[in-house]
């Protein structure tokens, strides 16, 4: 018996020692860099905090611009700031609030919170996140800085041509918007790709889609909307920049273009943008309300449906921003109906929150997060109601471009996003700092912001109905708007006082504390005991509120009883699961901290900035260096199978490598190609739209000889695809170097690049000049859109050749190759479609000249 007891004790000690070693190893592997090296960090908890911080800083700066404007409008005939500065201030305020604060803040919360909620160790592409965040910080800082030097754009946040064409906006100011915001949008898309793949492929085992936290659903919808909405405005900014720089008449009626095309493209992005901001905000509320009410969310299924439906419907509403452009009454009728219909899914969410609060039977905690949620419910509902008013065309005709609209969208956006964000700061602060923000100050902050908001914006409904147009620099006393404007200004300063108090509280309390892991008693996984590596082990989930349903889960997770309680591969890793049922598939090694992605972001920013100020050659050098550092960063990502099947805990083993559609890298490329496809669909729409309004610039009888070049180009695309297909089927075993592999990749890349280059040469030889008409400009634009894809595939092919020579590409280690083929086939498909469309459509539909 004594011997058994000793044995048991010895086993226990050994188990404890093993446990301690495993935790030590996890800590060592996931330790973030300190000091100035902190910039090179990639872990979601660290860079997510940078992201939230930067977004809040831009919010504060854009808020200061709002105070400048409100001070200017406080009294009639004021000359506090010049008209030019006022124009720049409202442009930068709107642009920064939308592009530098609202969308990035939601994306930032996704980076910080989503991996914790789904119990992933990290996002699947940490260096991509780091790249996106630094690109955003650098680009945003430069953009905000333009107002200090008189270089800021002044055309309003939606930059309508013809005001923004070179004739009416000379200088580089408008270019800072076009190239700067274009650059920041690329960063948003990179983040969206990360979120989609993270959400679908790195959930805790058992967390099937029907058990996913509402916030993860919202981030999935949010990222999907970015993927389909942002390409439209990227195309629009590209076209406007090309028109400004090279006189291709996309938006100039004298060349057959149409300024309304910009409005279509901009609002096809701009209206979904509102829901891109609101849906994650609503999801924050859907996460906080159940905890504050201590009862599960009422109608989870309906809330998920409502989020998806609202996101989808929002793509069919863009025309309601254009009711006053002179469209037929029936067109506006369609979009008025669709705009009112979207109120139904939005209303479903509001009623679900109210029902959940009612379900608490008086136990709803009115702590600061709860107060901000009540504030949100009031403000957002009022904004939604005025939204239904402006969705009605006759009313919109009266209120359009007046302060009524300014009041409406501030009620929607501040109610739908800013109040939930403040609730989120108070609710999730302990995740980052292990410290709650002050409840006492929090109530003051809520009161100041809530009262200030209503004092500022409620009167604006009246100033708008009394006829005050938006964006006016000043107004005469006889207009009768003085008292209302002064009231609004007092309200704006009250909000500012609330925000200043919040910053004070944040500075005071944002430091490591020692409160419990789950101070609010939430039921979701982000409040499990966490370290830099996330939870000690990744739990198996069986319900939507696993911590409420199995309180012992917290202890079990912390004791390492579930998946990956150790480093299975010896480095940073996360568990990849199947997208629907979330069953373990393989262990993905995730990269550690590093500099290449930060330097790549810096050079990429340099490329866009130098291009803006027309320093073309230095810009190109920066572009080449950015690509070089991206290649350095990506070279080591595809490591091949190192250990084969590894122990992942719970008595299971899983491979440490995957290729093709199972691999998370393949998914990222697939999502990227959706972005490319959305970009091309926007081009397709633009072409057809311009043909509808200006058929006279299309040739009536095209010259048949024009088909020689496209025919050669099409043959090259087809030949290239055949070469890559044969190569894919004949990759050799590990360590084999095959000349045929090198040759086939080179032939494939060469043929596709040549095919993409021949097309514009053919257009030129056929006598088409892109500066002559919108038809010719749009014909060339197809080639412009193919160039980055063909160029990307060419560079990727060069990397694959190098990988094969280095023994890193074969029939087993082929994840990079599979990703390449996806890109390659898509590029070839788009190229072929472009040839067919650009040369076929004028022959079928013809024109009028």
């Amino acid at each position: 018996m004594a011997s058994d007891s000793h044995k048991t004790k010895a086993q226990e000690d050994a188990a404890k020692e093993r446990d301690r070693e495993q935790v030590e190893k996890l800590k060592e592997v996931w330790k973030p860099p300190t000091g100035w090296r902190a910039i090179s960090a990639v872990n979601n908890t660290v860079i997510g905090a940078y992201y939230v911080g930067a977004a809040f800083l831009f919010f504060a700066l854009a808020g200061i611009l709002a105070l400048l404007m409100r001070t200017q409008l406080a009294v009639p005939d004021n000359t506090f700031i010049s008209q030019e500065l006022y124009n720049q201030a409202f442009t930068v305020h709107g642009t920064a609030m939308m592009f530098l604060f609202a969308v990035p803040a939601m994306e930032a919360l996704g980076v910080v919170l989503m991996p914790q909620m789904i119990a992933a160790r990290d996002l699947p592409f940490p260096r991509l996140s780091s790249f996106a965040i630094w690109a955003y910080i650098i680009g945003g800082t430069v953009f905000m800085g333009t107002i200090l030097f008189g270089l800021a754009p002044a055309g309003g946040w939606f930059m309508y041509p013809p005001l923004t064409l070179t004739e009416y906006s000379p200088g580089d100011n408008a270019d800072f918007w076009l190239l700067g915001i274009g650059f920041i949008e690329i960063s948003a898309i990179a983040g969206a790709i990360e979120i989609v793949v993270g959400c679908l492929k790195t959930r805790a085992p058992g967390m099937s889609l029907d058990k996913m936290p509402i916030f993860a659903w919202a981030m999935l919808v949010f990222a999907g909307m970015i993927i389909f909405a942002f390409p439209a405005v990227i195309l629009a900014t590209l076209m406007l920049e090309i028109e400004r720089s090279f006189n291709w008449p996309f938006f100039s009626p004298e060349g057959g273009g149409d300024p309304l095309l910009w409005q279509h493209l901009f609002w096809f992005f701009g209206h979904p943008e509102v829901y891109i901001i609101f849906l994650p905000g609503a999801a924050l509320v859907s996460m906080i309300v159940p905890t504050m009410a201590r009862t599960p969310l009422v109608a989870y299924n309906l809330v998920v449906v409502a989020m998806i439906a609202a996101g989808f419907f929002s793509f069919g509403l863009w025309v309601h921003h254009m009711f006053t452009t002179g469209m037929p009454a029936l067109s506006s009728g369609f979009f008025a109906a669709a705009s009112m219909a979207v109120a139904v899914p939005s209303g479903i969410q509001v009623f679900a929150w109210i029902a959940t609060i009612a379900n608490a039977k008086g136990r709803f905690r009115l702590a600061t997060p709860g107060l901000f949620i009540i504030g949100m419910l009031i403000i957002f509902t009022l904004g939604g109601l005025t939204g239904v008013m402006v969705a009605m065309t006759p009313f919109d005709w009266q209120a359009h471009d007046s302060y009524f609209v300014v009041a409406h969208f501030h009620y929607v956006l501040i109610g739908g996003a800013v109040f939930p964000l403040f609730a989120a700061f108070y609710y999730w602060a302990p995740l980052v700092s292990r410290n709650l923000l002050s409840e006492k100050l929090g109530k003051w902050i809520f009161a100041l912001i809530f009262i200030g908001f209503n004092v500022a914006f409620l009167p604006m409904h009246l100033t708008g109905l009394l006829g005050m147009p938006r964006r006016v620099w000043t107004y005469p006393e006889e207009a009768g708007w003085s008292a209302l404007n002064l009231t609004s200004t007092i309200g704006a300063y009250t909000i500012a006082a609330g925000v200043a108090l919040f910053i004070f509280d944040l500075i005071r309390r944002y430091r490591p504390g020692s409160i419990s892991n789950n101070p609010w008693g939430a039921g979701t996984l982000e409040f499990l005991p966490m370290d830099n590596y996330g939870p000690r082990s990744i739990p198996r989930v069986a319900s939507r509120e696993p911590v409420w349903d199995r309180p012992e889960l917290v202890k079990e997770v912390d004791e390492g009883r579930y998946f990956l309680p150790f480093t299975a591969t010896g480095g940073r890793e996360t568990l990849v699961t199947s997208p629907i049922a979330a069953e373990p598939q393989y262990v993905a090694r995730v990269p550690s901290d590093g500099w290449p992605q930060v330097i790549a972001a810096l050079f990429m920013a340099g490329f866009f900035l130098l291009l803006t100020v027309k320093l073309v050659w230095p810009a190109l050098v920066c572009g080449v260096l950015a690509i070089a550092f991206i290649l350095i960063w990506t070279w080591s990502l595809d490591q091949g199978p190192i250990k084969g099947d590894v122990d992942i805990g719970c008595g299971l083993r899983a491979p440490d490598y995957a290729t093709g559609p199972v691999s998370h890298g393949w998914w990222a490329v697939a999502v990227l190609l959706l972005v490319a496809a959305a970009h091309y669909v926007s081009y397709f729409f633009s072409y057809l739209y311009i043909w509808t309004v200006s058929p006279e610039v299309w040739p009536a009888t095209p010259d048949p000889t024009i088909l020689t070049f496209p025919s050669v180009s099409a043959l090259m695309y087809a030949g290239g695809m055949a070469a890559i297909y044969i190569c894919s089927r004949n990759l050799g075993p590990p360590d084999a170097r095959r000349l045929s592999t090198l040759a086939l990749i080179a032939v494939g890349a060469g043929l596709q690049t040549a095919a993409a280059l021949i097309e514009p040469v053919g257009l030129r030889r056929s006598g088409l000049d892109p500066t002559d008409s919108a038809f010719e400009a749009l014909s060339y634009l197809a080639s412009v859109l193919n160039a980055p894809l063909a160029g990307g595939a060419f560079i990727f092919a060069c990397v694959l050749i190098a990988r094969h020579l280095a023994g890193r590409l074969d029939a087993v280690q082929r994840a990079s190759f599979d990703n390449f083929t996806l890109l390659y086939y898509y590029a070839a498909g788009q190229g072929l479609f472009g040839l067919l469309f650009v040369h076929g459509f004028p022959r079928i539909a013809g024109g009028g000249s």
Partner: protein
Amino acid sequence: MKLNRDQIAGFLLCILAPLLVWGIHLSISYGFQASACAHGAPERPIVWILGATAILGAFLLGLVVRPALAVRASGGACWPEDTQRFARRATRYMAILSLIGAVWVGGASLYLSPCLSMR
């Protein structure tokens, strides 16, 4: 461990199908009306719009009544039971919302002249 390949495309297609139908309906309505008015055939779009509303509305009604058909057609038999139930409910709710949206949009053509400009 066998790499599980559950197909997200089938799931997304299942729950998004009603919304896609709504999108197709809006595109047909706006597209036909805009191009018909641009090319001087003002009365024809009404027939197309009402026809599209009737056909697509019937399809959506079918999804409201029998969402299980869409789940089965999307490969839902391979999903966990909870997920199948979720997909059935989601498809039904999406179909109801889309039906409301499509009838609302299509109904506008009964009251407004197709090419009357408000300018």
